[in-house]
């Protein structure tokens, strides 16, 4: 039933012709949007979506280089279902380029309050960056069927990571604080399933953890980044294939990979693959999705982690060198 629900939500209105998609924009002040904060969007768009037969989309657009959206958001008080749901997405202008980028849209909190609390079922978030200095970047509770794609979550010194209920995460990156007593990606709701595909966790004490429910992990990448007492995969009971850790005997399931991955610039939130066992050792999940955190199309053999491996461009042969050869 829940697999069908996620499938219906991913297919969108195209398969249910009566459903109307209502899109309104969130842009910085003075840039001509409908709303200037995601919080105001949520307050203004709250509705019984099945009764209206609508999908409501918050389209985050515009130039956010002047600063983040600092109004904390709680998604609650709606009525939704698998085909009439809430979608929050960035446009190309506001979206990160596959790595942490403070000049793009960031939903940010400087204290311990989560920038987003999801207490509503059937919510999709696509292409959004979340920052919380001392608390959870994403706080999922009292809700089911959250779908997250191309999210980047970052904390400064939080001991809590992002918490999810049921649903799916794909192509997401989580930058830990190194102070976690709770996982960077936590499932702690009973009798639910969270599917996690091609997600990267870097620098968190605890990576993926399950205290209740079932977390299925495929092509996920944990790298400790040198934190003390790291634990990349904690108490995972679900089906796990082709996951990677830099800790020996840590990655669970079938075909685990162990090794230290060289990233493009991990310290600055760029988890592009440069070298290591994450390259070409992923399972082919193209029946489910085909892109990566940066929006690039994945090709076989798949890689592990949120970013597809892109080989460095070959050195350019100088025209003079060719003619000087005997």
């Amino acid at each position, binding site marked *: 039933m829940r697999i069908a629900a996620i499938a219906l939500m991913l297919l969108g209105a195209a398969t249910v012709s009566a459903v109307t998609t209502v899109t309104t924009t969130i842009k910085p002040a003075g840039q001509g949007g409908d709303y200037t904060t995601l919080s*105001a969007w949520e307050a203004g768009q709250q509705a019984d979506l099945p009764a209206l037969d609508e999908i409501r989309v918050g389209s985050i657009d515009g130039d956010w280089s002047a600063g983040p959206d600092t109004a904390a958001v709680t998604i609650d008080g709606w009525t939704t279902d698998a085909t009439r749901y809430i979608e929050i997405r960035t446009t190309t202008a506001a979206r990160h380029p596959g790595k942490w980028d403070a000049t793009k849209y960031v939903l940010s909190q400087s204290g311990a309050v989560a920038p987003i609390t999801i207490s509503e079922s059937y919510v999709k978030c696509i292409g959004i960056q979340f920052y919380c200095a001392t608390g959870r970047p994403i706080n999922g509770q009292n809700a089911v069927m959250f779908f997250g794609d191309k999210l980047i979550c970052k904390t400064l010194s939080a001991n809590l990571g992002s918490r999810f209920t049921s649903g799916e995460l794909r192509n997401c990156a989580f930058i830990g604080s190194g102070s976690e007593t709770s996982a960077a990606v936590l499932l702690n709701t009973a009798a639910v399933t969270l599917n996690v595909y091609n997600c990267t966790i870097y620098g968190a004490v605890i990576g993926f953890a399950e205290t209740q429910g079932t977390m299925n992990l495929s092509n996920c990448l944990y790298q400790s980044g040198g934190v003390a007492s790291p634990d990349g995969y904690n108490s995972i009971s679900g089906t796990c294939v082709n996951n990677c850790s830099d800790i020996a005997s840590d990655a669970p399931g079938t075909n685990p990979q162990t090794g230290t991955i060289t990233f493009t610039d991990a310290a600055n939130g760029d988890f592009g693959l440069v070298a290591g066992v994450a390259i070409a050792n992923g399972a082919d999940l193209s029946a489910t999705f085909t892109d990566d955190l940066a929006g690039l199309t994945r090709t076989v053999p798949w890689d592990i982690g949120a970013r597809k491996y892109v080989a460095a461009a070959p050195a350019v042969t100088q025209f003079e060198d060719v003619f000087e050869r005997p």
Partner: protein
Amino acid sequence: MSRFLIFISAWLLAVPSPACELLVKAVDAVHSEPGKDARGSYKRGMVVVAMPDGHQWGARESLPTFVVIKLPGITVAKAIKYIAPQLDATTNTVRRRLWQIQVADIPLAARNKLLTTGSLTIGPTGDYTWVQFRNFIKNLETGLTETNNL
């Protein structure tokens, strides 16, 4: 002395006066489930966000869904208390907001101005003084009106 006065004057002109604007829900949202209605639905008079003075609101951050209360002389940091939720003893949210402006109790002339122009200014030279206006801000947990100065 005159240089000192010139310096002070220049400094006062350069430092912006504190002021903020509150985006306030103008209509009730209603959920059929009572617990979820209390926890999640914004009601008329609840403050949604607080922004610095002069914030250029979006096209839909206006009537019929929202109104703006302007508070010259009040910083965002001081007004931010009005966007806090009501929590229970275990810090779970039980109501979307702890505080609510009792729009129906605002005197008719001011209420009409608010609901036709979409804005009221609260301050010494505004539509109301803070001392007058705070009588219409209610703590939903205690049932008492605001008595504090900001």
